[in-house]
């Protein structure tokens, strides 16, 4: 196995096209290194992108948040721009592993590993995240939901590098959040993770809802039937009735054969109600 340290995106895509399926990008390495140490088939080359400054940074320009692939989960958990404009993402980053994990784990790595339990993915899905990919032959842009092809499987080609993630910041009269349930309160993978983003009109009618889940047998995904059940609902006394949406979430989880499927079906409606309550409390300037 070779260790190829690259200093720029141009060098990275050169190495990727040279090694093809034999090369493996190394970002924080919190997925790559344990796999290697466990004795899984090593790649011919590790392509270390961690020193590329151009892949860092979080900014908001023209109503779009751009996050470099190397931005660490710790940075997402603590950056004020993220806390204000993408609170669900900040909460999801905080829920990953421990401080030691978050120091090195990158957002791009969490996306490209595409685990069914990846905490940041529901939060990115409710922000309609778009991925900026680059290879020697050019650039392309793909929606996150389309990118996720199965647990651990993505639309990333062997010669492509994820460069940045673009996401829609929270607008006016909107709120969002992420909740995770695992077997213990930290250092465990999600049995269920749920992200919700809500927008309401000045008179308190939900005019936009996005709901995404992780932790099942499918890759993290949005649940359009649950979203549709929330849109059009009027807040009553500052509360949102999520009974129908909760039932939709439970029935969308029904085909899963995972060991925890029954538990997921029971817990999802309650998580949704709790999260909706938190979101509604966070939306100001709404008459009733």
């Amino acid at each position, binding site marked *: *196995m*070779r*260790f190829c*340290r690259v200093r720029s995106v141009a060098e990275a895509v050169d190495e990727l096209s040279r090694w093809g399926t034999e090369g493996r990008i*190394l970002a924080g*390495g*919190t997925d790559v*290194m*344990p796999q*290697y*140490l466990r004795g899984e088939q*090593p790649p011919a080359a*590790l392509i*270390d992108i*961690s*020193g590329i400054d151009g892949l860092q940074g979080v900014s908001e320009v023209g109503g779009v948040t751009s996050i470099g692939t190397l931005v660490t989960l*710790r940075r997402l958990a603590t950056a004020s721009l993220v806390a204000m404009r993408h609170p669900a993402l900040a909460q999801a980053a905080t829920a990953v*592993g*421990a*401080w*030691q*994990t978050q*120091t*090195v784990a990158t957002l791009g790595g969490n996306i490209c590993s595409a685990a069914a339990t990846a905490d940041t993915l529901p939060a990115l899905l409710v922000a309609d995240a778009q991925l900026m990919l680059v290879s020697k032959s050019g650039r392309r842009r793909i929606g996150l939901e389309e990118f996720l092809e199965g647990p651990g499987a993505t639309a990333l080609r062997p010669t492509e590098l994820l460069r940045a993630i673009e996401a829609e910041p929270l607008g006016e009269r909107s709120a969002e959040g992420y909740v995770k349930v695992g077997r213990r309160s*930290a*250092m465990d993978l999600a049995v269920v993770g749920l992200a919700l983003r809500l927008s309401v009109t000045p008179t308190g009618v939900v005019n936009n809802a996005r709901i995404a889940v992780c932790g099942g047998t499918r890759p993290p995904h949005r649940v359009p039937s649950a979203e549709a059940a929330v849109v059009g609902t009027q807040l009553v006394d500052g509360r949102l009735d999520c009974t129908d949406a909760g039932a939709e979430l439970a029935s969308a989880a029904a085909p899963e054969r995972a060991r925890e499927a029954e538990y997921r079906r029971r817990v999802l409606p309650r998580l949704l109600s709790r999260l909706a309550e938190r979101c509604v409390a966070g939306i100001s300037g709404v008459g009733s």
Partner: protein
Amino acid sequence: MPGAAGEQSVSIRLIVNERRHQLDVGAGETLLSMLRERLSLLGPKEACCEGECGACTVLMDGAPVASCILAAGSTNGRTVLTVEGLAGTGELTALQQAFVSHAAVQCGYCTPGVLMVLTALLEDTPDPSEADVRRALAGTICRCTGYQQIVEAALDAAQLMIRAATS
């Protein structure tokens, strides 16, 4: 096992406990094995080797990392601090002193990692709440103490440091 069979090496420069090093490390070598086997720094412990237990925790550019799953090759240009670097001048830090007076060390296997993550916490959050301390400890497992003495030592050290800074 630095430089496993079939691995090519890569040259890195880094600072460990205030000393500059230039080393050739294996492509799959971890920071932990580099520290223990090349630099003879035996403070960071090897336990799970999966990033789960925190016994191998060191600070990289001031932030805690699980050195057992960090590629040594990717530490080029970084600054690493291990437990050996805490009492560099020979005197224990306030946190280490508090560990002694609170009997927060029993078998001691987790201690080097716990000290490093709490050192980072006190740097980041000089006046932490008990919840802050417990959250910071989420990635370091202690089989002996039940954590209570560790938490009390950290809170006590924080107060000592605040008093020392203001007097």
